[in-house]
């Protein structure tokens, strides 16, 4: 049987792995371990650390502000994931159905993948600005007073829309690949049976695409928790009164505005738990699909 493992020298192999291992240990693993360690300390301004045990975690458990931040993050992530996937699935389906100009439509849909979050946030800040915004007048004509600099609900809505906008491209990239993998014969059968377009999408394509859709749920959740810092920093700075204070922004402020390194590290550990759980679920579900050949 042919094998790929044609080189024998262990020292060579170690040498090839060393750069990755060193950078991983020094800049990824050790700081992560240090974060866990620091979360049990109170760190003063001069860098003096006092062991305080689980005091930092107890503080987080008791903090109404932190609970609010958790609630905002979960709500935000939920709306972003559902919103991005609904919009992207619809757009992908349209592209899939069209015969002429398909690749042009595809490029026009995936470009937000390249959009920097800071730019997306800034453009939306300007377009929906309560006094300067282009979109403000048309929206106000509908009877809604645009006031998101002081209305928390509106602020969260604007940040959410901007975050969804940026993530559509990434989702379409994966969805179109999955949808194109649906056997043509299935599409034909559905057509001959007189199954309508929308029904075909929901009953035929979505189930077949489910591994990809699941992968995207996880990636979009990670995006909502970790990739959206720039939106909040640029658009709202967590306000008004904490309405957009998602966990990652809260963590940044704790660390680099209040310099509470101990508490911030405890918050890092909480976020680590979030990625950990997400990745674990993804790993388990992917394994499941692999077993059943889905």
């Amino acid at each position, binding site marked *: 049987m*042919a094998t790929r*493992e*044609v*080189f024998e*020298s262990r020292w060579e*192999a170690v040498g*090839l792995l060393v*750069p*990755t*291992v060193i*950078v*991983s240990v020094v*800049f*990824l693993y050790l*700081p*992560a371990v240090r*974060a866990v360690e*620091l979360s049990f300390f109170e760190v003063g301004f001069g860098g003096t650390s006092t062991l305080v045990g689980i005091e930092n975690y107890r503080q987080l458990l008791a903090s109404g502000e932190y609970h609010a931040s958790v609630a905002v993050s979960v709500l935000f992530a939920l709306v972003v994931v559902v919103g991005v996937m609904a919009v992207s699935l*619809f*757009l992908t389906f*349209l592209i899939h*159905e*069209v*015969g*002429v*100009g398909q690749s042009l*439509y595809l490029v*026009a*849909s995936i470009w*937000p993948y*390249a*959009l*920097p*979050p*800071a*730019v*997306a946030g800034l*453009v939306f*800040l*300007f*377009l929906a600005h309560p006094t*300067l*915004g*282009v979109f403000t*007048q048309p929206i106000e004509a509908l009877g809604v007073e645009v006031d998101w600099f002081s209305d928390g609900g509106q602020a969260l809505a604007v940040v959410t829309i901007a975050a969804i906008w940026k993530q559509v491209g990434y989702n379409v990239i994966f969805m179109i*690949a999955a949808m194109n993998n649906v056997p043509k014969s299935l599409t034909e059968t559905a057509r001959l049976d007189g199954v309508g377009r929308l029904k075909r999408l929901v009953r035929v394509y979505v189930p077949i695409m489910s591994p*990809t859709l699941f992968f995207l749920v996880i990636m979009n959740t990670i995006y909502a928790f*970790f990739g959206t810092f*720039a939106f909040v*920093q*640029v658009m709202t700075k967590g306000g008004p009164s904490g309405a957009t204070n998602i966990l*990652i922004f809260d963590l*940044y402020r704790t*660390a*680099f505005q209040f310099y509470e*390194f101990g508490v911030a*590290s405890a918050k*890092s550990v909480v976020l*680590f738990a979030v*990625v950990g759980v997400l990745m674990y679920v993804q790993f388990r579900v992917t394994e499941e699909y692999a077993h059943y050949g889905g």
Partner: protein
Amino acid sequence: MTLLETLTDAPDRTAEYLRDRPGVADLRDRLREDGLALHALLALSILVLVAPVLVATVVSTKELGIVTSLADLAPGSHAVANYRRALVDLEFGQFMLNSFVMSLAIVVGKLTVSVLAALAIVYYRIPYKNAAFLFVLFTLLLPVPVRFVPLFRLVTDLGWDNTMLAITVPYIASATTVFILRQHFLSIPASLVENAKLDGVGPFEFLWHVLVPMSKGVLVGVSVIMFVYAWNQYLWPLVIINDQSQQVVQVGLGLLRGQAQAGDVAWALVMTGSMLTLLPPLVLLALFRKPLLQTFTIQQK
């Protein structure tokens, strides 16, 4: 043939003419099959998706950038002045240069280090191979926010704050890149590798003369993914770079917004800066769309 006959006949004869040209006739049939509604719906969706950037582009050509009605959306005459002012007076040229250097260094560093690691993981018979691969994959659980207080202290202790080292070296190890390259290498037929081995080819010759030529698309694809990722980094440069002359373009953009809110610069210039920041990753996406899409399909496995 009378004029009237010619006119009434025209549609049929056009159809006949088109039928003789398979490409055109085919296109027409396919268009008819698509239906106008589908194209209208797609065009509308894409318009919604593109509108914010279109408006921003128009605003970036104006003097002030105050747009209160649709009539204000005609392009202005200050394009050259705005882009020159942003690049020269407002240091955007410097910010962009810093971002380019950072992104290129990350791409080259990550690619080199990851190709070597993937070579070891796929083509060497070594013990604990799965453990080594898991060790690399596990770093996916450690994005910057999970470790940034200790990382900040480490990089400051090394004396790297405000330097290019701070915003490049910590990014060099990449689980995603190693993973994609491993998957791709595993798809190259093993028999080919054995032939190379029989010919007595050493690992580096094998890498350079066999693997690299067979991986061009993937290498381009991951490079674009890495460049976009690096270019769009915001949080870490914000934390570790204080010296404005060393700042990257994403954070520089925030400085510009601050000036606009303080009334020091016009909003038109903020949109100019935004478009400058968007341009490089957008151009890469447009140029390397195909290898990029192919590489993404590997990532999901």
